[in-house]
């Protein structure tokens, strides 16, 4: 695994750095209090046999690092940046809503038209909440919504009537 190779390389290099510093400073452990000899401070050290046993992996050299060889030309850069798989896809599923003219996705409802419906249902639900009084009080009869100047018909006989104090909207015809 290259990771273990790197770790081994760093450990070896640190050890070598440390030993070379120690030699230069003259604090070598192998030279104890002995006969003072006038000689070079840097004595030849016995090479560690361990270094020969390990395989000289190609990662032991600090010069093996990936780097670009040449400058990428603007032509090559353009080819890479403008490749179709990097461009934003054009969406063909957007169309105008036939009712309000806002844009909508083909498979989804129009946001503007749904907003209208949502607001109206919220107001109807507020009215229902007022009629029910306390929570968890759902009746076991159907509900029908009547707007101003609307009388309950034959079909609305056994239903709970929710009154809304406004004119019936044009898009609410059932």
């Amino acid at each position, binding site marked *: 695994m290259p990771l273990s190779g790197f770790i081994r390389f760093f450990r070896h290099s640190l050890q070598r750095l440390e030993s070379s510093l120690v030699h230069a400073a003259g604090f070598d452990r192998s030279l104890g209090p002995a006969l003072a000899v006038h000689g070079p401070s840097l004595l030849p050290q016995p090479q560690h046999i361990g270094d020969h046993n390990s395989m000289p992996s190609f990662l032991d050299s600090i010069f093996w690092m990936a780097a670009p060889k040449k400058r990428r030309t603007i032509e090559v850069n353009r080819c890479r940046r403008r490749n179709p798989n990097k461009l934003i896809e054009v969406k063909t599923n957007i169309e105008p809503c036939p009712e309000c003219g806002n844009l909508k996705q083909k498979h989804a409802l129009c946001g503007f038209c749904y907003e209208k*419906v949502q607001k*109206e249902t919220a107001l109807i639900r507020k009215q229902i909440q007022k009629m029910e009084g306390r929570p968890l009080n759902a009746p076991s009869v159907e509900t029908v919504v009547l707007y101003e100047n609307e009388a309950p018909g034959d079909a609305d006989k056994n239903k709970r009537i929710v009154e809304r104090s406004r004119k019936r909207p044009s898009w609410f015809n059932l």
Partner: protein
Amino acid sequence: MHLTLRALISHGRVARRMGLGPESRINMLRNILTGLVRHERIETTRARADEVRFYAEKLIDYAKKGDTNEKSMKMADFWLTEKDLIPKLFKVLASRFENQSSGYTRMARLPNRENLDRAAMAVIEYKGNPFPPLFPVKKENELNLVNQLLKGYREERAQLTGFQD
């Protein structure tokens, strides 16, 4: 557990994974279903709406069997956490759909939620609810030029056939 191919390949599995596990998924769907029965129109994420659709229709099928049925009452008791909806289910929803055999719910996709998550939303409702319709009813305007010309053409055709007879 024993790593079989059956555990790795999910061909044909219809149920989605939701929440923290199968129990959490059922609890989540139970809450959504209770809300749907109470409000008859619910706005959730697309995946949840799609999952709850199956359970909503199955619940109506059980409710149609009548509230004297032991199994139906147990199912309604389990799935509806708010117990004032059980009479509503058996009286209102079952009688509303007694002439239909399937297709009690309607699901429509909405534009993505406005939050940072831009979640794909959907609205699911029981058919026959008292709220305004999601899909606007198409009105043919008779005062268009094309429609007036077609009307004239049809009248002429009727006149000609009247003469021939």
